[in-house]
């Protein structure tokens, strides 16, 4: 089943063309590794897919749903739509970007809890068509006054959701092997542990596609192994993943398909054996020879 379809994606920063007509598709549970030298547009591609940057043109379709189409590119997405679209993707950053003031567990549950709150509020107090703070407060109090029990129900349902989120987070922590760090703060964790928590945080929202932006580049060499093991483990669970990486051995071992990017274009695409052992393009050959 095709989960991701990217067609003719383009992105420029001022006059610099960073992405030139990127097209590829992904199947569900496929692991795609993107390799290439720095400045080739790998990171920008991930950022465009996660709607951190807006593509200039092209089309992004996830699970049959068109998230981005250039015929509408002049139309500004409102924040609400953009958020929904972002939730199809998860992104693990090179520099982890954990929230330093929260514990491991809270880092993982925060976003789910906020979404739960929104969901419960909407189901109990009706939809907010206007999204101003004032109207939110108004509808909230209207609901509370109209039916005092509604507020109780709200609290109860929220507690139930929070509890479910917590259990899910604990299960994820178990999966990444950090059960003993539930209440630790990010500064108390090693880089590898922080990155594993960041992976769990992205997984908690159950994205269709999980993206990794050089997940081990900021780590000491002896810490990369534990992070790569977690990614490998996710593959066994059937996660669909795009991994931008400089770890060639890892790409060869884990990826189903490799994309080699050069100068904003997909220079070569194929199975690891094809790309690594018998590359067609001269540039691919030169790049791989360096490793």
């Amino acid at each position, binding site marked *: 089943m095709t989960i991701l379809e990217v067609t003719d994606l383009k992105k420029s920063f001022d006059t610099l063309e960073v992405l030139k007509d990127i097209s590829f598709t992904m199947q569900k549970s496929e692991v795609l590794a993107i390799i290439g030298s720095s400045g080739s547009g790998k990171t920008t591609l991930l950022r465009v897919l*996660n709607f951190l940057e807006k593509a200039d043109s092209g089309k992004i379709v996830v699970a049959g749903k068109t998230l981005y189409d250039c015929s509408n590119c002049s139309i500004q997405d409102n924040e609400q739509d953009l958020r929904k679209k972002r939730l199809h993707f998860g992104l693990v950053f090179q520099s982890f970007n954990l929230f330093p003031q929260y514990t491991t567990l809270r880092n993982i549950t925060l976003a789910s809890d906020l979404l739960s709150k929104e969901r419960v509020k909407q189901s109990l107090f009706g939809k907010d068509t206007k999204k101003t703070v004032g109207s939110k407060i108004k509808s909230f109090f209207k609901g509370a006054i109209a039916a005092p029990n509604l507020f109780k129900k709200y609290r109860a349902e929220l507690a139930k959701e929070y509890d479910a989120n917590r259990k899910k987070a604990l299960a994820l922590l178990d999966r990444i092997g950090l059960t003993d760090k539930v209440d630790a703060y990010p500064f108390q964790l090693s880089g590898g542990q922080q990155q594993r928590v960041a992976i769990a945080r992205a997984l908690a929202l159950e994205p269709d596609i999980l993206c990794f932006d050089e997940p081990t580049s900021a780590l000491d060499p002896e810490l990369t192994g534990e992070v790569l093991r977690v990614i490998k483990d996710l593959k066994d669970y059937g996660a669909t993943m795009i991994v931008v990486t400089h770890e060639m051995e890892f790409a060869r071992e884990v990826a189903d398909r490799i994309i080699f990017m050069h100068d904003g274009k997909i220079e070569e695409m194929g199975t690891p054996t094809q790309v690594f052992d018998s590359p067609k393009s001269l540039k691919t050959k030169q790049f791989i020879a360096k490793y």
Partner: protein
Amino acid sequence: MTFLQVSKDLLEGFGTTLLLFILTLILSLPLGLIVSFGSMSKFKPLRWLTRSMVWVIRGTPLMLQIIIVFYAPGLLFGVTLSKRMTAALIAFVINYACYFSEIYRGGIESISKGQYEAGQVLGMTKGQIFFKIVLFQVIKRIMAPISNEVITLVKDTALARVIAFPELIMVAYNIVAGYGILYPLFYAGVFYLVFSGLLTILFSHIEAKLDYYR
């Protein structure tokens, strides 16, 4: 005048000083945040306007601002601010909000882009990112400069004397002038000293509390 009477008078003066101090903080701390949003706005006219206002307020003496707030309405429109407290408070709140806004701006701009992006890819709204992620980190970072400003405010309240607002220094000076005794001035100094000492302890306590993460 007995020591007891002097103490009673000074305590009363300190009461008005304290009231001005507390009300100024309560109003200027949140107002400063709003001003900082203005000075970081992507809408250029608003940013320009806010930054000019901050420039004017920070670039002129607070004493002058107090005088203007107190006398200008009467001279310009014939309406006088009936209460000296109101005039002093308005001047102090505007002045301190501008100083606080610059501290907030520095703090907010020091938070890495990665924190915002992490919130974005997790589907959070701008408001959620600001209030759940950024603000708390900002508070931790600006605690030291804020405590600096707060302690300065304790002593700046004495400037309200220029419009005959009955704060501590004015009360002390009136005793000195009326009874020919000098010690109430030093006595008043002790009030400031003790109070700012207490604030220093309070702030180091808060900073220690916020030190649970790095």
